[in-house]
């Protein structure tokens, strides 16, 4: 019997950063998106704000919708094969709180270049309370994954067995190890701040003390694993320099969490004009260039979201940005 896929709860900030598509062993395995924090997503459940629905393509049968959560924006594509959902989606007047059950989709315009989206199976207009419940639940599950990833990243060679000994479930353990193995570069500090911001979104006064926003557990894979025996797979280069805990002074200065909005927006806009060719500027390049200015990835993406909300930029295709 085929087990029904569980609908995973993942923030847009984590889901959109996914660069790995995978299948389980054995025939007939569905395909999964493996997120940077090791969630294997085939079915997904999202509650957020529907910000826009528009027809794309010539035939007018394909609709794109965007759903915003506290960390980013999900892209949904719904076509003639999901007529019921497409009808429902296109009849909702944004902005509106919506709950969506959907399937993960991968778009790979060039080998190695992966963009993820969602194909909805069901959509329903809900209220703010349900959205907040979803954010809370997603915070809890994200925190669980982040904990497992931290553990796996600190292991010399991440092993499912060792993780299970630390009382992680076999599934959580296996997925964390897989993510550490698959992602060349993982910045867990970034996701830690994303999570903290999502918690603050629910409770603005929640005191998150001692949050290591700058915590840099960056995992870099050796380029050729076989030749480079000295650096075992997944060896974490904790704090970049050495494995020792740095003192406070050694930590890099805290990245501005709330950037000076207007100045940054102008700067990012000019980056987009500069990089944008006919197809628009590649999202990743914009983010990278934006980070040169001293913002962290999270802050750049916040600026992008804000620009989109203001209608100054848009995504002509997934992963591309263009000025309006």
């Amino acid at each position: 019997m085929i087990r029904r896929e569980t609908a995973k709860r993942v923030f847009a900030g984590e889901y959109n950063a996914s660069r790995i598509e995978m299948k389980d062993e054995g025939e007939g395995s569905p395909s999964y998106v493996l997120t940077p924090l090791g969630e294997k997503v085939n079915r997904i459940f999202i509650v957020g704000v529907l910000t826009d629905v528009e027809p794309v393509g010539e035939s007018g049968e394909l609709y794109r919708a965007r759903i915003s959560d506290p960390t980013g924006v999900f892209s949904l594509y719904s076509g003639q094969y999901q007529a019921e959902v497409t009808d429902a989606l296109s009849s909702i007047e944004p902005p509106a709180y919506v709950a969506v059950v959907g399937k993960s989709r991968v778009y790979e315009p060039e080998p190695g270049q992966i963009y993820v989206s969602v194909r909805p199976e069901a959509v329903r207009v809900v209220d703010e309370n349900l959205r907040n419940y979803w954010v809370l639940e997603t915070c809890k599950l994200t925190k669980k994954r982040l904990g497992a990833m931290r553990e796996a990243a600190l292991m010399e060679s991440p092993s499912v067995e060792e993780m299970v000994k630390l009382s992680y479930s076999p599934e959580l353990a296996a997925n964390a190890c897989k993510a550490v193995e698959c992602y060349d570069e993982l910045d867990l500090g970034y996701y830690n701040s994303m999570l903290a911001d999502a918690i603050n979104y629910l409770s603005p006064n929640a005191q998150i003390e001692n949050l290591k926003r700058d915590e840099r557990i960056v995992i870099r894979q050796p380029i050729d694993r076989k030749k480079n025996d000295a650096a075992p797979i997944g060896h974490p280069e904790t704090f970049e320099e050495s494995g020792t805990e740095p003192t406070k002074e050694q930590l890099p200065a805290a990245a501005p969490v709330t950037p000076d909005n207007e100045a940054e927006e102008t700067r990012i806009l000019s980056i987009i004009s500069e990089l944008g060719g006919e197809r628009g500027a590649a999202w990743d390049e914009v983010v990278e260039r934006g980070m040169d200015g001293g913002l962290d990835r999270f802050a750049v993406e916040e600026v992008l979201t804000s620009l989109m909300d203001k209608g100054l930029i848009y995504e002509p295709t997934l992963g591309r940005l263009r000025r309006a």
Partner: protein
Amino acid sequence: MPEKEDIAPHVEELARVLGEKVGRDVTKEELEEQLLKFLDYGVPIDQAKRTLARHYGVNIPQGETASRPIGSRTLLSDVRDGDSKLNLLVRVISVNPKEITVKGEKKTIFYGFLGDESASTGFTAWKDFELEKGDVVRIGNAYARGWQEKIDISLGDYTRIMKVDPSELPRHPAAMNACKVSGLSAGLSGVELATRILSVEGREVTARGEQKTVFSGIMGDETGKVRFTAWHDFGIKEGDVVRISGAYVKDWRGVPQLVFDENSTLEKLDGDALPEADILDEGNVTTLAQLVERKGATDVVVNATLIEVRPGSGLVFRCPECNRVLQKGTCRLHDKVTGTPDLRIKAVLDDGEENISAVFGREITEALLGKSMAECMEEARESMDYEVVESELKARLVGEPMRVRGNAINDDYGVMLLAQEAKRLTVDIISEADKLAQEMI
């Protein structure tokens, strides 16, 4: 038959394990002689070594002997359909004769249960091995067949059986499985747990021609509740707190059930050892992953999102004869009948880590809809469509977090929660978020 040279390395290994005992308690020659004797009886080599070592006071843990040749012992829990040449060390839990007719000839076969430290399994002996209840036997060359989705051990003409001292298979493994109720799943044995008896009743049964009183009911601790059956009168009463050792867990209609008998021990504990019955009765919140791992459970509470309203929900019509839901006015058994209306929801519950099915009956469905069945019938008549109720359920419930209480049963299609209570889950989101904030680093 093994030759002396063949077993020389094994004798050496034994001697190494026994250390200074060799020469003092036993000679190498004696070891070799005893080992050969075991092998002559068809005892697997590593079992023989382990037994001999134990005889001289040294324990070789399972799996640590150097060689595990074909013919090593298989635990009942590892036996699969189609396995043959099985070597087992088991206790005969029960044995009963049965008359059958093979090719026109009357023949007596025997059936019952065998158990070891891992599981208990049914068996069929195609001839009389003179097995008796309580015997501990080594079985060589048995085979396993799947029968009605259960494994049955077959003992035939080529099977060898040797009675051994019952101490070879301790009644309960030295280390009991200290359990909480939430950790019980079918197949576990050697269970030890402390629980409060929440209900108990005796009933007369006839087992193997004997009148016997069995006691069954529900017991629980702070982690959950479980049905139980006691095949022995321990004098337990409702409200008692007891510690039971040497119990095992069986699947009973898709729900794990704790079973204990005269081979188990029961000790009454102080009443304060566990929360009062009314506190235990409030129900235990279980994750869906736990429910799936436990393969069902008695009286649990789950908090999960109703992720899908399945087809066949809403207004349905049941056969007045057999209560089956009609398909297009037709019963599978009784053909065209005038159905009795009913209201139900077939749902999928999902907590982001696991998903299960759930069924909500009429009362719960009415409460969630805020409408009576009569009103639903009226609506269906007006719109000339019975499916209008299903659509309305979808529009109201998909994506809603629910708190559902009921019994979870397990079958070929997975776990299904039969809801006794269900309501929308209410959570104080800000205080939960504050709690989460405090756990952040």
